[in-house]
C-alpha cells in the first residue's frame, strides 16, 4: 500500500466518522471501497497496514446518526477487513463484529428500512464468508432467518444480493459436508490456511458439532424454499419468482448429494406451482427445470426421470403463450434430448403453420390447434407469440434433422409467406379458413414482426437445401425495399438479409434480369430517400455487396455480388459519388467506405487507372481537407489504407499507372491526416504510415510488425524475420523514401500529439523504426560505425508546431547529456555536423536532423511508459481520492469561506 495514502487515511477516517451529512460526491465511498478491495486482493492485510480502520469501524457503528451511505460503507468495509481469519479474530475480540452485523442494532435505530443498509449488511457478510470462522459466526448468530426474509425484499438489488448470498452460504455448507464425508482434503486444507485469499474455499477440520449446524442450515434453507415456493395468494407471486431465481442458481451450482436433496425437497412444490399455471412464472420455472435438467447427468437416474417429467409437463402447458415461452426457453438452452427438442420445435412452428396455412406440421392435436388459433386472434398476443417463434427459428434449424417436423426449406417458405402477409399481400397465402385469415390480418404492417421475420430469414440462409429459395427471397426483399411504408429499420434489415443470402448462395444462376433491374431501380430510389438512415443503409449495402464473392454460371467466373447483381462499378460508383455530397456526414462516410469496397477488386486485379478513379481520389482528398465532420475524414484515410494494403498483398508488381496516383495521394493523406483535429483521423494516418513502414522493412532485421513492447524479451523470433540479410544500403534507401513520403514527420508529429492514442501509436512505431535503423542494443558508437550511412539520413524539423516540440525535447536531452558523457548530435541540411540546432534555426534555414539521432535521443521507452497510462491516472488515484475527501469536508465545514457545492450533474 502506498505510504502517502496510509499517512492520509487516519484523517480521512476521522472526517468520515465525524461528518453529519453525506459526502458531496456519492461515488467517493464506492471508489474508496474499490481501493480497499484491490489492496486486499493484492494480499495485504487491511488491518495490519491501516490500524486506524478498526477504530473507525467501531466508532461509526455506534453512531447511528451518521448518514446511511457512510454506515453502509462501513458494513461493507468490515466484511472486507474480516476476509482473513486473523483480522476476523481481531474484530471479533474487540466485539466490533457482533455489533456491526447485529440486525437488531440497525432495526432499533430505524435504519433497516433504508435499502443501502440492507445491501451493506448482505455484501459485508458475503465478502467476509471466505473462511470457516465466518461461516461459524453466520450460523451461530442465526443470520439465516433474516437472510431468508431478504430473498423477497422489495428492492430488486437487495433481493438479488440476498439471492447470491444464500447460494454462497449453501455452497459453503456443501463444501464443508463434502470435506467431512471425503475425509480431510489435503488441497482444501492448504487453501483454507492461506488467509490472504478471498477465493471461495473448502473448509478443513470440521467438528461433528459444527457439521450438524451446517446440516441444519441446509435443511432450513430447503424447508424455506419448499414453503415459500407456492404462493398462497396472487400478491405473493413476486416471492415465488425470487425463490425460483434462487433455486435455478442453486441447482446449477450444487453437486450431489445436496443437489438431490434440494430437488427432492422442492419437487412437490414445483409440481404444485406447475399445476397452478401462473403465466408470470413460466420462464423462471423453466429456468429451474432446465438448471436441474442440465446437471442431471452428474446426478442420479431417479431424479433424472422426475426432471424429465417436469419438462414434459412444461412443454404441454395449455396456455399457448406460456407454451411458446417454455419451448423457446428450452431450445435456447442448447443442451437437448431428442424427444423434447422435437416437441419444442413443433410448438414453435405451430403459429407459423396456422398463419401461413403451410403444412409445416403433419399432425397436430386439434385441441392445441384450436386454443392456439383463439390466442392468435388477439392482435397483441399474436404479434408477441409470432415474434418469439421467429426469434427462435434459428435454434430450430440447428437441431438434428430427425427432430425437425419439416425440412428447413419449408420453414423458409413459411417465413417468406409471413413476410408477404405482413405487407398485406394475401395472394399467395394458402390458409383457407376464415379464422386463419383473421389471424393473418393481425400482423399486417407490424414492423416488429417484419424485423423478427427478416432476422429469421438471415439466420435461415445457412440451412441445408434452402438455396433453391434464392429467387423468391430476392423478389420479396426487393418488394420490401420498394414498399413506401417500410420502416427504416425494416429496410436496414432487408438489406442485411439480401447481403447475407448473396454471401451464402454463391451460385446466382437463378437470379433473373428482372431481379437485377428491380434491385437497380430500388437502390437508386432509396439512395435519394428523405431519411438519412435509409440513405446510409443503402450506401452501406452497396459497399457490403461488393465484398461478397459469387459465381455466375455463364463462365464459372468468380466476381463480387455487386457486379453480379447491380452490374458493378458502372452503376454503384456514380451513386456513391453522389452520396459524397450528402448533407449527413454519416452517409458521406459510408459512401467513402463503400467506394473502397467497390474498387477493392480492381485494385487487387491491378486494373489500369481510369479517369473516374482519378476524379474520386481528388474528391476524397478534398473531403479530407474540407469536410467538417470527422467520420468522413476518417473514412478517407481508411480508403487509402485499403488501397495501399491491397497493393501490398498483390503478388505481381503494381502497374505503374496505379502507383503513380496512389503514392502521391498517400503522401498528401499523410500530411493532411496528421494535421487533422480528429484523433481518429490521426490514428488512421499512423496506420497508413505503419503500412509503408512494413512495406519498406518487412523481413529486415529487427523489424517486428505490431507492438514491440508486447513481445517477450526472450521470445523466439520466427525465422522469417531473418530471411533477408541485413543490407545497409537497402535500409538507407528505404529510410530515405520514408522521409520523403513524410512518414517520419508523421510519426514525430504524432509523438507530441495531445491525443493519447495518437502519441502512443506513434511512439510504438518510432520504436519499431529505431529497432531497424539504429538498434539500441548495438550501443551508440557501434551503431554509428556499423551504420554510418544510415546515420546520415536526415529529416526536416521546421520551427513551428510539432517540430518545435521535438526540438525542445532534443535540446533538453542534449543539455542533460552535456552534463553527462555523450552529446546528442544535431545536423543541418548542409550536413554541418557539429552545428547545433540553435545555430541552424538562427541561420533561418529549416534545420535537418539525423533520423537515427532523433530516434536515439527521444527517450521513447520512457515516453511509452507514460502514454500507456490513462490520462486521468493522477486525478483518479487513491491518493487523489483521499485528498478530495479531505478537501471537500473542510470546504463543507467552513461554509462561509466557500459556497456550497451542489451536486447537480447537468
Amino acid at each position, binding site marked *: 500500500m502506498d505510504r502517502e495514502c496510509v499517512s492520509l487515511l487516519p484523517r480521512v477516517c476521522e472526517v468520515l466518522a465525524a461528518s453529519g451529512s453525506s459526502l458531496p460526491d456519492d*461515488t467517493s465511498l464506492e471508489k474508496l471501497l474499490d481501493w480497499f478491495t484491490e489492496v486486499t486482493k493484492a494480499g495485504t492485510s487491511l488491518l495490519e497496514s491501516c490500524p486506524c480502520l478498526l477504530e473507525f469501524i467501531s466508532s461509526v457503528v455506534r453512531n447511528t446518526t451518521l448518514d446511511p451511505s457512510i454506515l453502509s460503507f462501513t458494513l461493507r468495509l468490515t466484511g472486507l477487513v474480516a476476509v482473513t481469519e486473523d483480522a476476523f479474530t481481531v474484530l471479533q475480540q474487540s466485539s466490533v463484529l457482533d455489533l456491526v452485523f447485529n440486525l437488531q442494532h440497525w432495526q432499533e435505530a430505524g435504519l433497516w428500512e433504508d435499502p443501502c443498509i440492507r445491501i451493506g449488511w448482505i455484501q459485508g457478510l458475503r465478502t467476509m464468508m471466505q473462511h470457516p470462522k465466518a461461516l461459524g459466526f453466520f450460523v451461530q448468530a442465526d443470520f439465516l432467518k433474516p437472510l431468508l426474509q431478504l430473498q423477497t425484499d422489495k428492492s430488486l438489488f437487495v433481493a438479488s444480493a440476498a439471492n447470491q448470498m444464500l447460494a454462497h452460504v449453501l455452497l459453503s455448507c456443501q463444501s464443508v459436508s463434502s470435506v467431512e464425508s471425503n475425509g480431510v482434503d489435503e488441497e482444501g486444507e492448504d487453501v483454507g490456511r492461506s488467509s490472504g485469499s478471498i477465493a471461495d474455499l473448502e473448509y478443513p477440520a470440521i467438528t461433528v458439532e459444527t457439521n450438524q449446524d451446517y446440516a441444519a442450515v441446509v435443511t432450513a434453507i430447503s424447508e424455506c424454499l419448499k414453503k415459500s415456493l407456492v404462493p398462497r395468494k396472487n400478491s405473493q407471486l413476486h416471492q415465488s419468482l425470487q425463490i425460483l431465481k434462487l433455486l435455478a442458481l442453486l441447482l446449477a451450482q450444487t453437486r450431489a448429494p445436496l443437489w438431490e436433496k434440494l430437488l427432492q425437497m422442492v419437487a412437490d412444490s414445483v409440481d404444485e406451482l406447475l399445476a397452478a399455471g401462473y403465466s408470470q412464472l413460466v420462464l423462471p420455472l423453466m429456468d429451474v427445470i432446465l438448471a436441474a435438467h442440465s446437471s442431471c447427468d452428474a446426478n442420479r437416474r431417479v431424479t433424472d426421470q422426475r426432471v424429465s417429467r417436469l419438462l414434459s409437463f412444461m412443454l404441454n402447458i395449455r396456455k399457448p403463450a406460456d407454451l411458446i415461452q417454455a419451448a423457446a426457453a428450452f431450445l435456447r438452452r442448447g443442451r437437448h434430448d431428442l424427444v423434447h427438442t422435437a416437441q419444442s420445435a413443433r410448438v414453435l412452428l405451430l403459429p407459423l403453420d396456422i398463419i401461413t396455412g403451410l403444412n409445416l406440421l403433419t399432425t397436430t392435436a386439434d385441441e392445441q390447434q384450436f386454443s392456439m388459433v383463439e390466442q392468435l386472434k388477439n392482435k397483441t398476443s399474436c404479434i408477441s407469440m409470432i415474434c418469439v417463434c421467429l426469434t427462435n427459428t434459428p435454434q430450430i434449424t440447428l437441431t438434428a434433422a430427425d427432430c425437425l417436423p419439416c425440412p428447413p426449406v419449408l420453414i423458409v417458405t413459411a417465413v417468406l409467406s409471413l413476410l408477404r402477409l405482413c405487407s398485406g399481400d394475401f395472394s399467395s397465402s394458402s390458409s383457407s379458413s376464415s379464422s386463419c385469415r383473421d389471424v393473418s390480418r393481425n400482423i399486417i404492417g407490424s414492423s416488429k414482426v417484419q424485423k423478427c421475420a427478416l432476422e429469421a430469414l438471415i439466420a435461415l440462409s445457412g440451412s441445408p437445401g434452402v438455396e433453391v429459395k434464392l429467387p423468391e427471397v430476392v423478389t420479396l426483399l426487393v418488394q420490401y425495399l420498394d414498399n413506401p411504408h417500410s420502416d427504416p429499420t425494416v429496410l436496414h434489415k432487408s438489406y442485411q438479409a439480401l447481403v447475407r443470402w448473396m454471401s451464402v448462395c454463391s451460385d446466382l444462376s437463378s437470379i433473373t434480369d428482372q431481379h437485377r433491374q428491380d434491385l437497380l431501380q430500388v437502390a437508386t430510389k432509396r439512395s435519394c430517400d428523405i431519411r438519412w438512415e435509409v440513405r*446510409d443503409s443503402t450506401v452501406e449495402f452497396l459497399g457490403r455487396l461488393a465484398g461478397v464473392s459469387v459465381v455466375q454460371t455463364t463462365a464459372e467466373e468468380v466476381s463480387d455480388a455487386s457486379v453480379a447483381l447491380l452490374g458493378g462499378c458502372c452503376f454503384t460508383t456514380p451513386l456513391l459519388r453522389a452520396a459524397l455530397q450528402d448533407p449527413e456526414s454519416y452517409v458521406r462516410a459510408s459512401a467513402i467506405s463503400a467506394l473502397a469496397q467497390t474498387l477493392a477488386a480492381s485494385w487487387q486485379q491491378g486494373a489500369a487507372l481510369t479517369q473516374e478513379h482519378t476524379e474520386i481520389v481528388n474528391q476524397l482528398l478534398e473531403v479530407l481537407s474540407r469536410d467538417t465532420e470527422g*467520420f468522413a475524414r476518417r473514412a478517407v484515410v481508411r480508403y487509402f489504407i485499403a488501397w495501399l494494403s491491397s497493393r501490398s498483398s498483390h503478388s505481381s508488381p503494381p502497374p505503374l499507372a496505379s502507383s503513380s496516383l496512389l503514392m502521391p495521394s498517400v503522401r498528401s493523406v499523410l500530411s493532411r491526416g496528421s494535421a487533422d483535429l480528429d484523433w481518429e483521423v490521426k490514428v488512421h494516418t499512423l496506420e497508413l504510415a505503419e503500412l509503408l513502414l512494413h512495406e519498406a522493412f518487412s523481413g529486415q532485421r529487427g523489424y517486428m510488425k505490431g507492438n514491440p513492447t508486447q513481445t517477450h524479451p526472450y521470445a523466439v523470433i520466427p525465422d522469417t524475420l531473418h530471411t533477408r540479410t541485413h543490407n545497409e544500403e537497402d535500409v538507407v534507401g528505404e529510410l530515405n523514401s520514408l522521409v520523403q513520403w513524410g512518414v517520419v514527420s508523421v510519426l514525430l508529429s504524432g509523438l507530441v500529439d495531445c491525443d493519447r492514442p495518437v502519441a502512443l501509436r506513434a511512439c510504438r512505431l518510432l520504436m519499431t523504426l529505431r529497432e531497424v535503423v539504429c538498434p539500441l542494443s548495438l550501443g551508440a558508437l557501434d551503431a554509428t560505425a556499423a551504420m554510418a550511412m544510415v546515420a546520415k539520413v536526415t529529416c526536416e524539423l521546421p520551427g513551428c508546431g510539432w517540430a518545435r516540440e521535438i526540438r525542445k525535447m532534443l535540446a533538453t536531452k542534449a543539455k542533460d547529456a552535456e552534463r553527462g558523457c555523450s552529446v546528442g548530435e544535431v545536423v543541418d541540411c548542409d550536413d554541418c555536423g557539429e552545428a547545433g540546432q540553435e545555430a541552424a534555426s538562427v541561420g533561418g534555414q529549416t534545420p535537418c536532423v539525423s533520423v537515427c539521432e532523433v530516434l536515439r535521443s527521444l527517450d521513447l521507452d520512457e515516453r511509452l511508459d507514460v502514454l500507456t497510462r490513462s*490520462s486521468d491516472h493522477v*486525478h483518479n488515484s487513491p491518493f487523489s481520492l483521499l485528498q478530495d475527501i479531505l478537501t471537500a469536508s473542510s470546504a463543507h465545514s467552513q461554509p462561509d469561506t466557500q459556497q456550497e457545492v451542489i451536486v447537480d450533474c447537468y
Partner: protein
Amino acid sequence: MPEINVTPLGAGQDVGRSCILVSIGGKNIMLDCGMHMGYNDDRRFPDFSYITQNGRLTDFLDCVIISHFHLDHCGALPYMSEMVGYDGPIYMTHPTKAICPILLEDFRKITVDKKGETNFFTSQMIKDCMKKVVPLNLHQTVQVDDELEIKAYYAGHVLGAAMVHIKVGSESVVYTVSRNKHAATAWIDKCRPDILISESTYATTIRDSKRCRERDFLKKVHESIERGGKVLIPVFALGRAQELCILLETFWERMNLKAPIYFSTGLTEKANHYYKLFITWTNQKIRKTFVQRNMFEFKHIKAFDRSYADNPGPMLIGKFKRQCSVIMPGYCVQGTIGHKILNGQRKLEMEGRATLDVKLQVEYMSFSAHADAKGIMQLIRMAEPRNMLLVHGEAVKMEFLKGKIEQEFNCYMPANGETATITTNPSVPVDISLSLLKREMALGGSLPDPKKPRTMHGTLIMKENSLKLVSSEQALKELGLNEHQLRFTCRVQLQDPHSDPDTLHRIYTHLKSVLKGYTIQHLPDGTVMVESIVIKVSSSAEDSNAKVLLLSWSYQDEDLGSFLSTLLKKGLPSGLC
C-alpha cells in the same frame, strides 16, 4: 386491480444515471437510458440484467423514450442497443436525435482517447443506435402499437427536452425532465395521468431568481476583465453553454464591451449549429427575437484557436495571471481537476509529480437548468395527476418536496431497484344496444343519468377490444348460437299413503295455500307447475307409500326451487284432502 409499476434502475433517490422502468397495462417502457459520470467501469451504465436475465431486452421492452440529450439521460443508449442488444423502437425529439450523437461521440472520445479504454462502443455502434431512433414531434400522438401511445410536450431545460405522456387504454403516466425558467412557456394538457414522474433535483429550494444569478455572473465576468484579467468558463453541459453565450452576447452588446469572447471549437460549435437550426424548438423569447436576428448568430463570440491563448489583453479565455478568474457553472465529479478546483484545492498534482498552484480566483455558480419546488408544483396544477413519483434528486431533499406534495396526493420516491406500485381504477367504457335501453325504459326505468347509476341486465360481448352490453336474444343472434336452457332437478322422498295422482293433488292444494300470488297449475299430463318449476310424483316398486317427488326448475327460479324442495321435504300437512 390493475396496477402501474415504476422501478428506477438509476436516478431513484440520486442524481446519477436516469433509467426508469414503467410497466403499464402490460407494456414495459424504459424512460431514459443514462450513464453515471462518476464511474469509469460498468457501474456507469444501468444494470439491465435486473430486467431480464436472459438479456433479451427486445422481447421485454416495448419502447425506450429519451427525454433529452444530456448524457445522464442518454449516455448508455448505444451500450444498451448495440452491446447488450435491443432492437425495438427508441423515441426522442428531432433536436435530441440531432445532438445526441455529438455528445455520445464526445463521451467516446474522452473514454477511449483520454482514458484509453478499449471495450467501449464504437462510432459505428453510435450510428447504428441512432438509426433505430424514431423522431418525435411536439404535441403529436405516436402510436407505438395498437395499445400504447405517446405524446411529447415542450419541457424547457435544454433544446429538444420533452415531457412525455404515455397512455395505455385508460391508464397513463407523464414523465418530465428538469424544467427551467423557460418552462413557464411550457404547457401540458390537463391529462390527469395516474402518475406524474418528475425530476426533483432542486426539490428543497425555491431558487433565488435566475435573474439575480445571471446578474451576479455578469458582474463577476465584468470585474475580472475590467482588472485586465481573463475569464475561463469551463461549461460541460450543452445547453448551458448556449444559455451563457446568449447572456454574454447581450451584455457585451449593451455595455459596448470590446474584449473578445471565445468558445472552444468542437462540441459547442457543432451544437450551436443545431441550436440555430432548431430555433423553433426554443422558448418564446428567443423565437420572438428571431424576427430580427437569430439569437444563436453571435457577434461577439468567436471560435477559439489554440494560438490565441497567448494574446495579451483581457478576454474570456487565455493565459492566466493572478487577476484572472475561472467560473465553474456546474458540478464536476470526483476524479477530475474540476472537482479539486471546485472544492478549493490550491495545489494540483500533475503528471510526473509536478504540482501547479491555483493562483486565479475560482467562482462556483450553479447554472444547472433544473426545476425547483415551484416549477414542480406548477406542473402538478397543470396536469392534475392522481399520484406523484419523484426521481433524480437527493433523498433528503426529495423528502421535503414529498411532504409538501403529500398534503394533496400520494407521493412516491422509490430508491434504485425498488418498485413503486400504484393501483389504478380504470373506467372501462361499454356500449349499450339501443334495443336493450328501450326495453329497460319500457319496464318503467327513467332515462340514463350519469349521476344516478343503476343496474342493468344483459349479455356482455367482447369484440375487437370493445365491450358491448346487449339483450341475450341479440347476443345469441350476433354470435350465431342456439339457446340452451339449464334446468336444476332434485328428488324429494315422501311418505304418503295415497295413490300417485292423489298425492299430486295434495301437493297442489298444499302449495296453493302456502304460495299466495304465484301461478300454480295442475296440468293434465300429471304434473304440477309453479312458475317454471315442474313437480312429478312416482312411487317406489317395493313400498307404494314411499313417494319420490321430482322437482325441476330453470336457473331464473333458483330461489323458488330451493324453497319448494325444502318445503316438500318437511312432508305434507295431514289435513289436506
